[in-house]
């Protein structure tokens, strides 16, 4: 069996499916490969690490049907370096011939029979707007934990609300909450936990316009787009009770321009050198406004006043600078509000004009 496809089309598809390929294959070496399924007039490429599966269909001239698994990394690197034009792939018993222009390659294939059974979309599909979902994911997903030792926190909570869904993620140091009214993804009262890695890939795939069809099964959720399907296994377990963390009101309120603050944080934290991501940045808030400062032992200090409006008692609170920048980025709005209680209690970042997103951040102890 063989197929012929345009390099640009194939390269995009390979790159997309490759994002689900396991970085560590462990017990199942075939997961280092991309499954190619040849069907009449199209080729489907599938990458999977068992948690996440991405399937992409591309139009192709196909001769013969069947499946083969090619080493994903090689294919991905090759596609990015081939010149534009036709790519021909001929699949034999245990090797594949790849030809493009004057380039030729014969590579060993992996056993297609070892490739795990492909997840099929379960349940009834629900169509929702892709743009708002992508925006919500962009705001919330970075707050999820990357520590596999805490599986529940590597998931994003998707919970039905009265008029839509709410997305919540936390790595236990910060918490991001986004309400998406009108996005009726789930039945009333339902909530699921979906791995942040899969959702982050979904967010890259989602178009700004149009719709995505969502199939929620018992153990998995599938997002179907034009020609591409992403299936993520649900994370099992109970998401921590985050609601009690968010107080109804805060005595201290700082209003500041987001870009001005982010630029100043980026300058002031430089003194932290290699540790600047985790180095604390102090926010001294008073009637005069805001002064940022950072101190690095044996290196020095930096300061910068930032124009801001402050209502409340004089207060200095310190945050991990990267977590603060992540929050500023996620909040999105040009003007934002930082609300705080005292230097030891969680502070809230939110846009000054909407209340559909909030970012809760635990301060760092300052000596």
């Amino acid at each position: 069996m063989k197929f012929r496809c345009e390099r640009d089309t194939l390269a995009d598809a390979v790159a997309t499916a490759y994002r689900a390929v396991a970085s560590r294959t462990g017990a199942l070496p075939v997961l280092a490969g991309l499954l190619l399924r040849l069907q009449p007039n199209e080729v489907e490429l599938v990458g999977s690490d068992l948690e996440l599966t991405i399937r992409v269909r591309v139009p192709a001239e196909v001769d013969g049907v069947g499946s083969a698994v090619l080493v994903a990394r090689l294919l991905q690197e090759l596609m990015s370096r081939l010149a534009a034009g036709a790519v021909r792939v001929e699949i034999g018993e245990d090797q594949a011939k790849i030809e493009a222009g004057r380039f030729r390659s014969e590579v060993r294939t992996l056993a297609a029979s070892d490739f795990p059974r492909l997840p099929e979309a379960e349940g009834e599909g629900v169509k929702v707007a892709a743009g708002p979902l992508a925006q919500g994911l962009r705001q919330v997903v970075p707050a999820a934990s990357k520590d596999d030792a805490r599986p529940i926190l590597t998931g994003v909570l998707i919970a039905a609300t009265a008029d839509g869904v709410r997305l919540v993620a936390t790595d236990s140091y910060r918490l991001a909450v986004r309400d998406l009214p009108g996005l009726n993804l789930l039945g009333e009262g339902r909530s699921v936990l979906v791995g942040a890695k899969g959702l982050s890939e979904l967010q890259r795939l989602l178009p700004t316009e149009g719709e995505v069809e969502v199939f929620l099964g018992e153990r998995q959720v599938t997002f179907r787009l034009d020609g591409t399907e992403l299936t993520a296994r649900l994370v099992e377990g109970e998401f921590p009770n985050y609601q009690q963390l968010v107080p109804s009101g805060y005595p201290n309120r700082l209003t500041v321009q987001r870009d001005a603050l982010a630029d100043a944080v980026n300058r002031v934290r430089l003194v932290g050198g290699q540790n600047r991501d985790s180095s604390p940045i102090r926010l001294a808030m008073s009637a005069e406004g805001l002064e940022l400062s950072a101190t690095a032992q044996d290196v020095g200090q930096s300061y910068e006043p930032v124009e801001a409006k402050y209502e409340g008692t004089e207060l200095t609170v310190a945050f991990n600078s990267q977590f603060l920048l992540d929050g500023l980025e996620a909040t999105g709005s040009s003007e934002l509000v930082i609300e705080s209680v005292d230097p030891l209690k969680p502070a809230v970042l939110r846009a000054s004009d909407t209340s559909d997103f909030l970012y809760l951040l635990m301060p760092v102890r300052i000596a």
Partner: protein
Amino acid sequence: MSVAPADAAILHVDLDAFYASVEQHADPSLVGRPVVVGGLGARGVVAAASYEARRFGIQSAMPMARARRACPDAVFLAPRFDAYQDASRAVMAILHSYTPLVEPISLDEAFLDARGARRLHGTGADIGMAIRARVRSDTGLVASVGVATTKMLAKIASDLAKPDGMLTVTPGTELDFLHPLDVSRLWGVGPATRRRLDRLAVRTIADLAALPEPALQRALGHAHGAHLHALAHNIDERGVEPDRQAKSIGHEETFPTDVTDRARLDRDLTRFAERVATRLRAHATVARTVQIKARYADFRTVTRSRTLREPTDLADDLARVGRELLAELPLGDGLRLLGLSAHQLLAVAELQPALPFDDDDPGAGSRRADLERTIDDVRRRFGDEAVGRAARSAPPRGKPA
């Protein structure tokens, strides 16, 4: 190619027979006599021996009983760590007066990068001589110094210079100096590696350098082989790191008799945890990993470690994990040594506290921390025995231990 500095200005300063020398300086009647510092009980081990004692074959890590037999007339002393710490601080202060680039390795050993100090203080060898003179005049201790273009060579040179000497490896002659030496002079060549190299007929560093790298890697493993191959060609790119923090903080004790009583071992771990936690807090440091070390009656030594979800500086946390690790360990014929140490240390300033989720009582952590800090304070003012935990005390009399 080595990126070694062109001039010999890396110094390794090593105090001779450090603990014993401090004792001899503190009590002039001990000068010229064999002095042995270490555990004095039946199971004690020699921590340091003066050169007078070494003439009788006494070495550090030797059982104290053997040392007593080797030289019954020696002066045997229990260690006084406070005095050694003070002496070490005085020596390190002298080193810092030549350059800020001082990397302390232990109480009695440090590397210096004196490249930037040469305009003020002369060549590396000049600085080495000046340091030796000042250590002697200011502290009464004897420092041996190695001067070379790399850390490894400086360390080997100071070893060869001992006692009371200095050795400079002139740039350009590094391999002439290194190659005739026994392979065991290299870092990373312990008894096991030594035996494997012996099978390849490798005895000197020249033999090692002559061996192709792949052959060495097959014999010793990829990373270790590559590492030794580089060292044998004097490729040692590690710089002097002044800020190198302690990698771990721990406490261990050798028991007078082998211990099989788990309750007793748990109490010991609790006590060790308090000492370790106090030192963590004194260094404004928290630990992410707790390790226990157990040595059996037959000297077999095992370690077990566990990484915590949140880093801690609290004795409670260290002790709890330590006891869990011990519970999973068979005791066999009993333990002759038990230790607890804290690893993966982080400065408190870098510590990010967690949001107060309600799955644990939000105030509990800070209340325990307050309690332990109060204990630190009481002990500072009234001494270590002024306050302790109930779990540390022996069970009440009348109950089986």
